[in-house]
């Protein structure tokens, strides 16, 4: 590889590409050529830096300058000022929201200071379409070491010692899973990577596949060696075209180098990988449904046991792991199981990637050591709540998880603590809510998702979730009763107890956790017919404060249903029965004369 004095890393993940990072890359390269700096500076298209809130990101090394919200037309200035003359382009630097100072070095950004990147170690650092950059960072050294120095059981022991648990939601110990699959005898076994990632708002797995596809290939090969499988399959949703493309390129390159195929690194180990595309159904992330979908059947779950490790793909022993789980595997072999086990809490080792979203300043992708508190994640890394509003709750675990509140802010995040607090780790979605979010509506949102995504095979999930959703709609429409709340709770427990698969067994969690932590909010919906957050339209009451009303008729003209009447220069009135609570009058009124309750 050529030696450049400066590396310009540009995020080419799905997020930044949506805001023209492709053009930025082209422009930077052109400018470099124009200004004769080809041998000085290199432009690298990388995976996600995580700071998606302020994308597109251009990071310049070695000085760690972090330019945010870069536009294609900024490129000429970046090259002529920064690359040629060493002067940072101040207006593109990230501004600390508290001190309002420009931060020159990304190492000093609150967003990065508490992060620890293991699964994301190469994301935003290497060119994912260039296997050489992966190899330069010790890529494929882990599989090399294992094939030449370790027996299968030694390698499995290493994973067991590391304490790695599945990042796909369940948190099952990975080493144990591999051991079970390795002990089952068969003429063919399979390694499956679960890249279905169906949680709303989650993009951890996509970012890893886009930013560091070789780490998944290497880890799958390691798993293949450990359990005795020569075939790997990646089940990936077709809605991830960029991840698919990068993975395909990576597989091709690995084959060309002989790192996939027969006789890998001169040993008798053979392994290859094939992609299987999913149509984007949440239930197909459940491992038995996923396997059926790969076999060409309907994506419906079946009862476990038999577990995939006994009878999986085509009836053969199959080991299913999540993308992020695989991504930590090579690092464990390179740095040692005890290093990995030294990070995290007693029963949850290593790091976890979260997709931070909602009412938070720094929306993005983060990786933190297990055991970090929600407060650190939300207020330090996440930069606090947007627009200075008050924190209300944080939803973890997606449609299977629950809401945590103020009192959980100092709980160390790990698998067991989150479960004990009535939520779960899930795959890593983290949605932050503020005082304007109505918790009944939040529960309703998740149920809407589950109703849509339930495969319909078992009655509790198919019918039960539908009923839950109907009751929540009724409450939000101001027609709920206190009995409904009892009914919600009871039905939730029945669905959890009787559903066939993990989808139905967890789908009532958003209802149960909000019922528990925000009972008062449910009560005010059904008793006083008030939505404190002001989100439930039907519970809003619009009136005109006659003292403030100047009779300008702006609201009369704005009202789509002619619910407002009144003479010019006389106070107007809203007909409550006709009003559809759309808020158009409120937005139009220049004299704050519209009162909302």
């Amino acid at each position, binding site marked *: *590889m*050529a*030696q*450049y*004095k*400066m*590396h310009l*890393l540009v995020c080419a993940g799905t997020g930044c590409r949506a805001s023209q990072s492709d053009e930025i890359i082209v422009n930077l390269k052109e400018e470099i050529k124009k200004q004769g700096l080809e041998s000085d500076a290199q432009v690298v298209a990388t995976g996600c830096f995580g700071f998606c809130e302020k994308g597109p990101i251009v990071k310049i*090394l*070695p*000085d*760690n300058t972090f330019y945010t919200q870069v536009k294609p037309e900024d490129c000429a200035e970046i090259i002529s000022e920064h690359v*040629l*003359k*060493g*002067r*940072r382009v101040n207006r593109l630097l990230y501004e600390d929201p508290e001190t309002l100072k420009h931060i020159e*070095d990304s*190492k000093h950004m609150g967003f990065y200071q508490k992060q620890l990147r293991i699964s994301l170690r190469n994301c935003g*650092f*290497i060119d994912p379409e260039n296997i*050489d*950059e992966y*190899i*330069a*960072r*010790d890529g*494929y*050294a882990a599989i*090399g*070491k294992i*094939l*030449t120095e370790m027996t299968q059981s030694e390698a499995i022991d290493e994973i067991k010692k590391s304490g790695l648990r599945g990042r796909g939601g369940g948190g099952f110990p990975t080493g144990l899973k591999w051991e079970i699959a390795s002990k089952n005898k068969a003429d063919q076994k399979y390694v499956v990577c679960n890249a279905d990632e169906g949680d709303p708002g989650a993009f951890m797995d996509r970012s890893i596949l886009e930013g560091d596809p070789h780490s998944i290939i290497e880890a799958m090969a390691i798993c293949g060696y450990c359990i005795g499988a020569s075939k790997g399959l990646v089940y990936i949703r077709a809605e991830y075209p960029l991840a698919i493309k990068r993975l395909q390129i990576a597989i091709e390159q690995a084959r*060309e*180098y*002989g*790192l996939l195929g027969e006789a890998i*690194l*001169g040993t008798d180990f053979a392994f290859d990988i094939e992609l299987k595309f999913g149509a984007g159904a949440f239930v197909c992330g459940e491992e038995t449904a996923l396997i059926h979908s790969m076999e060409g059947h309907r994506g419906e779950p079946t009862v476990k046991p038999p577990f995939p490790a006994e009878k999986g793909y085509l009836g053969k022993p199959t080991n299913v792991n999540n993308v992020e789980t695989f991504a930590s595997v090579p690092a464990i072999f390179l740095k040692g199981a005890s290093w990995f086990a030294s990070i995290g809490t007693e029963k949850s080792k290593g790091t976890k990637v979260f997709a931070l979203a909602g009412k938070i300043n720094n929306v993005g992708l983060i990786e933190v050591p297990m055991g970090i508190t929600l407060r650190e994640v939300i207020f330090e890394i996440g930069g606090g709540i947007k627009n200075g509003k008050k924190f209300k709750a944080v939803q973890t675990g997606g449609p299977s998880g629950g809401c945590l509140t103020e009192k959980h802010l100092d709980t160390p995040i790990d698998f067991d603590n989150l479960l004990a607090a009535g939520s779960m780790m899930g795959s890593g979605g983290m949605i932050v809510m503020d005082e304007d979010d109505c918790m009944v509506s939040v529960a309703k949102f998740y149920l809407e998702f589950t109703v849509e995504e339930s495969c319909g095979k078992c009655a509790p999930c198919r019918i039960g979730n539908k009923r839950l959703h109907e009751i929540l709609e009724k409450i939000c429409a101001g027609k709920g009763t206190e009995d409904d709340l009892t009914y919600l709770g009871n039905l939730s427990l029945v669905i959890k107890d009787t559903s066939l698969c993990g989808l139905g067994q967890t789908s009532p969690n958003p209802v149960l956790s909000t019922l528990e932590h925000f009972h008062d909010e449910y009560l005010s919906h059904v008793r006083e017919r008030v939505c404190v957050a002001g989100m439930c339209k039907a519970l809003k009451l619009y009136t005109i404060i006659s003292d403030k009303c100047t009779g300008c008729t702006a609201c009369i003209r704005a009202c789509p249903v002619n619910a407002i009447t009144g003479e010019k220069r006389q106070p107007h009135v809203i007909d409550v029965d006709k009003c559809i609570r759309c808020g158009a009058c409120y937005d139009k009124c220049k004299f704050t004369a519209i009162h909302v309750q």
Partner: protein
Amino acid sequence: MNKIKSLDDLRKMKQSLEHGMNIREKSNSPESLVQIRVAMATCGIAAGARTIMNTLIEKIEKEKIPAVVTQGGCMGYCYAEPTLEVRVPGKDPVVFGNVDTQVAIDILDKYVLNGELLDGIIPTNYLTINEQK
């Protein structure tokens, strides 16, 4: 493209590839490295800062010196260009003025590697152009 036929092949390949990534690896942990900032404004470039920078980078690579070279803007010592600032972890930064190729090599050999002080340090009580105004 050649197949990698053994772990040895892979290791050799890694070695030949890693120097291309060195700059990136180094900037991942700048606190632990000696940081050398070459003033590369118009005044610096005119006085030959680019050659100095190349000399530094080549020597650092060749001798695997734990240092990273970045470029900076004008530090205000235009009368003493080329100038460079050296930050050894745990020590106050030092600015050298009127640096030529030989001085650059001496800075690495003597100051960075052995902690010896050299001529050419611009004392901190000197005024920058901006302060003189």
